[in-house]
């Protein structure tokens, strides 16, 4: 992970500030930085989203392709995640340097979405045991300024909301062979319901308190963090501790309560933004990559 070198004095300053609920940029312990979300930024994809959380910049593209369903789930499609850490974020990611981090993030995403209630995979089925839609969700990390998991989960949710899968019909002729016909209308498509898609809230333990949405500097002061995956209703679907330090069981319960609180607010604002963006329709001014 991209890291920043901090002196002991700077670490002490940050820790003391956090004890008083005052962070370096003036936020409270449970405040997020300003999040910018924009969908439909890459035209080659079925759905895309770009999220900027402070200086952390994530671009997610979803491509829908036809494939065969998995043997153990013949009536469902599935999602495949791939995370690419661009060398633009830090020169350490050049070549294969970003592979470790990319695999870690992709595995976390797989775990979150392995929950049956996150996405209704039955809508991705075309004909049982033969054809289904496979959604390739590709995450591109353009710039890293702390709190990668949160930003990535927000971007994945926004991209899935934006995904439009063409509607297909299966035609069976007399011999029993099946033919797949694409709808003539390019706007005739199926959308995924992202009501239950969770978002990750990362809580970093700094001193005796924990903070939400840590910057790179704050992550350098924290020895242990908790990744909590929260749905819009406040249900926790996945929990993971990262970092070399250890956590008290009481702190873990406290952090979980904070994450549920913060997660609900995050989901509400995200839904708001996504619906507002969609209601603007084709007249929306797109900022894209030039902003």
């Amino acid at each position, binding site marked *: 992970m991209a890291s920043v070198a901090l002196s002991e004095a700077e670490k002490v300053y940050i820790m003391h500030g956090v004890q008083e609920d005052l962070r370096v940029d003036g936020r409270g312990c449970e405040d997020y930085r300003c999040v910018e979300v924009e969908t439909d930024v890459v035209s080659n994809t079925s759905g895309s989203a770009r999220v900027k959380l402070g200086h952390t910049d994530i671009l997610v593209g979803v491509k829908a392709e036809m494939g065969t369903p998995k043997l153990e789930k013949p009536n469902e499609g599935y999602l495949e995640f791939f995370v690419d850490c*661009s060398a*633009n974020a830090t020169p350490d990611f050049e070549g294969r340097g970003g592979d470790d981090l990319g695999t870690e993030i992709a595995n976390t995403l797989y775990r979150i979405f392995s929950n049956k209630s996150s996405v209704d995979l039955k809508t991705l089925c075309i004909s049982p045991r033969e054809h289904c839609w496979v959604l390739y969700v590709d995450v591109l990390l353009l710039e890293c300024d702390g709190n990668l998991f949160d930003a990535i989960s927000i971007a994945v949710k926004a991209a899935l909301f934006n995904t439009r899968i063409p509607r297909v019909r299966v035609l069976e002729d007399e011999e029993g062979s099946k033919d797949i016909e694409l709808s003539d209308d390019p706007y005739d498509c199926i959308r995924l319901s992202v009501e239950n898609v969770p978002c990750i809230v990362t809580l970093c333990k700094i001193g005796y308190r924990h903070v939400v949405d840590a910057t790179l500097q704050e992550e350098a002061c924290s020895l242990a963090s908790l990744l909590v995956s929260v749905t819009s209703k406040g249900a926790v679907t996945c929990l993971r501790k990262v970092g070399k330090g250890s956590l008290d069981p009481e702190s873990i319960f406290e952090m979980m309560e904070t994450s549920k609180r913060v997660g609900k607010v995050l989901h509400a604002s995200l839904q708001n933004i996504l619906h507002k963006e969609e209601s603007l329709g084709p007249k929306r001014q797109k900022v894209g*990559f030039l902003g």
Partner: protein
Amino acid sequence: MKPYGFLAVPRCDSAWPAKIRGSRARALPDRALVNCQYSSATFSTGERKRRPHGDRKSCEMGLQLRQTFEAAILTQLHPRSQIDIYVQVLQADGGTYAACVNAATLAVLDAGIPMRDFVCACSAGFVDGTALADLSHVEEAAGGPQLALALLPASGQIALLEMDARLHEDHLERVLEAAAQAARDVHTLLDRVVRQHVREASILLGD
């Protein structure tokens, strides 16, 4: 660590050359080492790409970019250093090499690294007796001859020239001229943008 030079172009997102890097083992005693990496996002092309970088085409592009910029950057002014140019393609619709070179030129200028001249690039092709400049993906896929040209506009020197498929030598001059003219047009645009940016920056600094 923030990039020293950064530019976003609708099809190609380019990032920065870093000034001094740790790997002195690879450093050259009399000039700077230019290191380029070309990476294109898996969702950038119509068909999903399996690997963003590390495959043959990306490595080849990286080498071509390196050759182009070694010709333009004044490497003697920065001995025992390394300049990293990382190009990230977000969406590809033909002419990726040209877009990469144009974006990287601006990024290098933004980083303050001295160059001989702008490097402007354009692709060109030949269809039905007509020379075409700046081919789109559909035109590239049609299979005709394709030429990629990187030019240093002030002197007219060519930094990189590459051509695929067969083209009769009688037509070469026309195709080359089409690419060169398009590159010169790109230069006019880049020059105007850079001057405007410098003007705005100096106003903000209060000079």
